[in-house]
């Protein structure tokens, strides 16, 4: 077993040598690369990566350039997870046969995908990987919309959000369905580790990623990725918006171990109202019209209920 990288504080962490390069074509202020950097810097082991189609893939592999300093597979919309799972299966087979060229090095297998490629299009593939129990980590860069193709709704899009295929206007308040609870679904696969992370809480994130690398079996990470283009806020506010999301409990940070044991890993000191989070983004601005007040109320109610549920689950330990 390779040794875990020791990260005590941010100063120590800042001595990491990045394996993700600049001059990628992600928007200025995109949270994707903040998340990717934090994950790649959490380990010193070799990495085998893939990215399903989405912003991250198309922006980091624009011919003739690559932004990755690790083995990285460019693959279809749905099968990023299976590509990495295949590599992992091959690694295991070669190891068993004693044909690995560097048997002392244990690579880590990570697949990155957007919420569209995980919640909708790649769901069957991810489900398959988790059912077969590959030793991989699947990271969802959850920006709640198909940002790469121009902001269509995905099944991760929350209620009331205005998207290009569910636009808000005279008759509609935007997206009608609520976000799919992907963590519960992946935990139900019996995965050894499932967690929700946010880039602004880097220490919590590093801890979860390192735990995910240490366990044997499939690991699912849902990373909130604030999208300056589709959520409609200024690029410099990415971290501020992420703070609002975690402090208003819209994105509660928690983990589920072995499919059952739920731990809340971040409890905000001052819980802020959900409308502060919604009001900071252009995609929800129509909700503040008087006729849409019921959506705002429903938002707050849903977030409160979810938080209550998580706390009960944590107490019960089941």
């Amino acid at each position, binding site marked *: 077993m390779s040794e875990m990288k020791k990260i005590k504080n941010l*100063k120590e962490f800042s001595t990491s040598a990045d394996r993700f390069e600049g001059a990628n074509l992600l928007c200025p202020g995109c949270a994707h690369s903040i998340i990717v950097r934090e994950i790649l810097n959490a380990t010193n082991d070799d990495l085998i990566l893939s990215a399903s189609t989405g912003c991250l893939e198309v922006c980091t592999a624009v011919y003739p350039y690559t932004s990755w*300093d690790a083995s990285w597979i460019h693959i279809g919309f749905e099968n990023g997870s299976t590509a990495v799972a295949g590599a992992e299966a091959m690694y295991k087979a070669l190891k068993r046969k004693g044909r690995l060229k560097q048997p002392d090095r244990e690579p880590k297998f990570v697949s990155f995908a957007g919420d569209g490629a995980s919640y909708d299009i790649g769901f069957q593939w991810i489900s398959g990987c988790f059912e077969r129990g590959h030793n991989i980590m699947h990271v969802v860069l959850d920006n709640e919309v198909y940002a790469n193709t121009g902001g269509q709704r995905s099944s991760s899009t929350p209620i009331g959000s205005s998207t290009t295929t569910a636009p808000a206007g005279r008759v509609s308040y935007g997206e009608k369905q609520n976000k799919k609870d992907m963590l519960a679904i992946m935990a139900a696969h019996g995965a050894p580790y499932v967690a929700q992370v946010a880039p602004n809480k880097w220490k919590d994130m590093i801890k979860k990623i390192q735990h995910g690398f240490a366990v044997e079996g499939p690991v699912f990470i849902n990373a909130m990725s604030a999208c300056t283009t589709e959520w409609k806020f200024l690029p410099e506010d990415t*971290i501020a918006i992420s703070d609002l999301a975690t402090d208003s409990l819209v994105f509660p940070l928690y983990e589920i171990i072995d499919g059952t044991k739920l731990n809340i890993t971040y409890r905000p000191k001052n819980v802020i109202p959900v409308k502060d989070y919604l009001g900071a983004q252009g995609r929800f601005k129509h909700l503040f019209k008087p006729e849409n007040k019921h959506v705002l109320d429903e938002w707050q109610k849903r977030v409160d209920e979810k938080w209550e549920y998580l706390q009960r689950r944590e107490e019960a330990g089941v």
Partner: protein
Amino acid sequence: MIDNGWDEFEIGAMLRSFDGAVKDIATTLQEDRPYSKNNSFTASVADWRIEKPVFNKDYCIDCQFCWIYCPDISIISRDKKMVGIDYDHCKGCAICVEVCPTNPKSLLMFEEKMDEDEALAGWPEKENKEK
């Protein structure tokens, strides 16, 4: 068509990030890496910027918030110290300025064509917070 084996690639199907063998990339700093011409490190997005961040080391406390939250690996930190900004890869998003906790900020946005010495000369004074 040439018949390739299972572990061979067509020309162009694979890009190499580095020229030649690299022993351990996770412990090799960027200045010591043999980047190939296909690595986006050798490209630049400097022309995306309208405003650029300028670093004033007089006020910096090396908290590294700018380093962790920079999306473009443009904050150069060495030996736990903030050293400077990589203007080839900075897109001018200003996250580093927003997360800077010092008073006055040790990173501020200035117009792209402004001279750095001029920017440093006109740095704002410490702000007294109203109670």
